[in-house]
């Protein structure tokens, strides 16, 4: 099982080196910004960096979980905005908001289940299945909700706490991101199910031939990533008092992929973990924060981000070369 990294030392060496590259870039950027920008190194700014990547990071943990199993989940942003918007929408009928959120979570899990079934049982390639489902989910939401921006009811104590609360000085949004990441990390590393995800991602056919329940594993991945997306949506609603469904049209889903690939989770599956997601998230966080402080234009920010994504993909291609096995079973 190469995911464990024990049977293939050469791969482990390379894998570590990509993560090291990302961490090294982060450290260099951090030092440069600390030296050149006022207040960059302040405690407040470090917390701001973490707070600003908490949504991206939470989504990336979910995406990473799917990519490890050789999938990809492009429905995450659609599920996030529509799930939360659905909760807010039904709460306007007079349903208690907490109950509405639970209903939203159930809806989101059902969407995840459907995506998982399409990928695992109907065997539609995940990139196409999730692209199409994302569009249908968002489209249905647009028809139902009329408005793009939906505001949560104003006096929900727990939602305010998610947005503005602190635990030991750390904002709740960061705490939730940390908790999701820690749970996922433990799940992938320490549970048998987690190891099976790596096996499925590394070689789905071999995994199936050996008798692993690959289909239920894949379905579970999509349900979990949908629920994580919903969690990210709740964080966002807490932070800005509402949800903007137009985020579906933004580059957010690609930023999520950027974080995952950048961190070193190969798109060919079976490798990497939550640590990689965190490395990628922190690099993007430092980069965005620095570019905002430097007041770079939107276009140049996007350019720099895309050059980094391209670089990450190139490194991925060198580190995980296409071989007989990947070309037979496909990349994604």
């Amino acid at each position, binding site marked *: 099982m190469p995911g464990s990294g024990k049977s293939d030392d050469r791969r482990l060496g390379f894998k570590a080196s990509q993560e090291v590259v990302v961490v090294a870039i982060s450290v260099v950027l951090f030092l440069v910004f600390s030296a050149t920008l006022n207040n960059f190194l302040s405690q407040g700014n470090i917390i701001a960096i973490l707070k600003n990547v908490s949504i991206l990071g939470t989504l990336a943990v979910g995406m990473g979980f799917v990519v490890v199993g050789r999938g990809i989940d492009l429905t995450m942003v659609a599920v996030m905005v529509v799930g939360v918007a659905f909760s807010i929408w039904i709460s306007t009928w007079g349903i208690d908001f907490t109950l509405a959120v639970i209903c939203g979570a159930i809806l989101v899990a059902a969407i995840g289940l459907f995506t998982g079934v399409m990928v695992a049982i109907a065997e539609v390639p995940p990139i196409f299945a999730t692209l199409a489902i994302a569009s249908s989910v968002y489209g249905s939401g647009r028809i139902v909700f009329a408005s793009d*921006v939906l505001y949560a009811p104003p006096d929900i104590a727990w939602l305010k706490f998610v947005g503005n609360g602190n635990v030991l000085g750390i904002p709740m949004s960061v705490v939730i991101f940390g908790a999701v990441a820690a749970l996922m990390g433990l799940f992938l590393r320490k549970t048998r199910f987690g190891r099976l995800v790596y096996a499925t991602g590394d070689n789905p056919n071999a995994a199936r031939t050996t008798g692993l329940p690959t289909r239920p594993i894949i379905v579970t991945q999509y349900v979990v990533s949908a629920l994580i997306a919903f969690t990210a949506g709740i964080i966002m609603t807490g*932070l*800005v*008092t*509402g949800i903007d469904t137009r985020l579906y049209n933004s580059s957010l889903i690609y930023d999520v992929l950027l974080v995952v690939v950048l961190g070193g989770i190969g798109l060919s599956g079976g490798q990497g973990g939550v640590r990689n997601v965190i490395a990628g998230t922190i690099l993007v966080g430092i980069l965005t924060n620095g570019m905002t402080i430097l007041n770079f234009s939107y276009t140049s920010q996007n350019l720099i981000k895309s050059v980094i994504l391209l670089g990450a993909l190139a490194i991925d291609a060198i580190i995980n070369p296409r071989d007989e096995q990947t070309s037979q079973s496909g990349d994604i």
Partner: protein
Amino acid sequence: MKLFKKCLLAGMTALAFLGAAQVASAQETDQVGRAAYLDGVKGKKVIFVPISQGMDLNQAWVMVWQRHAARYGFTLEVRDPNGDTNAGIRAMQGAIAEKPDLIIVQNPDVQTYARLLKQAQAAGIKVLQVNMQSATQTDSYVGNDWIEMGRLEMGELAKHCTGPNAVSHKVVWLAGVQTGAANIYMRTGIDEVLKANPELQLVSDQPADYISEKARQITETVLQQHPDLCGIMGIWDNAEVGAGAAVAAAGKQDQVTIVTNGAGAATGCESIKNGLLDVIFNFNAPIQGEIAAQQISELLQHPDRKAGSEKTIFFGPITRVDKTNATGRNCWKPEDIK
């Protein structure tokens, strides 16, 4: 007997006059010019290509126009590209091919539809642009005076952030989409105010892309960098609530003035009441819609006038709304317009 005859005659004459008068008044009950108006607009076809129908301003416009269309018998079709520029181009091409009597368009930026609008005019289709202009001027534009909007918003910040009592002279411009008409023209107005108030210091000029979370992130970062920030101006109330949330999270609501503009929806007033926003320059989308409806009637009534031969501009109202007047007409709900 003679007297009786005279009376009878007088009576009959009176009756005859009365009858004639009645006939005359029956003819005059048709309002002058109404028949020609109805004839002019009835059965005409209008296509609207918005940026996205999910926005509050678009919903207000279309509600007003649909009511107008239903009453006077023309059709209004909305081809919503939902924020996708490519889909918008296809929608415009489709609309031109159908040769409607009028195309209404809300431009995503000044360039994308510029050539298509020329094509439409060349094909004899009249074009009304709403709120977001293209580089191509067409028959009519109804919407904001965006340069004035930039001037008003930065002027508001100049009031708070200049002089000896100001916290600092630092201000932020949270832009929308940099190629959008609103953005480009507001910037001109902003620059005029900055030039007139040289002590004002523009410390950040970043587009939030009309997304509240992006506005929140930028504001949070900028506040770390400039803890003594005095004011923030934005481009859409629904996005600047994010800036408001970041300022509130930093506990600086009394220090930082947040000014933006908006369609005047009740959600904006709620944001003022919640303390997330301080001032909204309200362009009252339902009234804007009525002005555009008047333009629709005008353009449909003169089929003989060549498309693009007369170019007119109508700037809508702008009302300064803060805590004191965030009520009534300044805070409409979609159900109020119906």
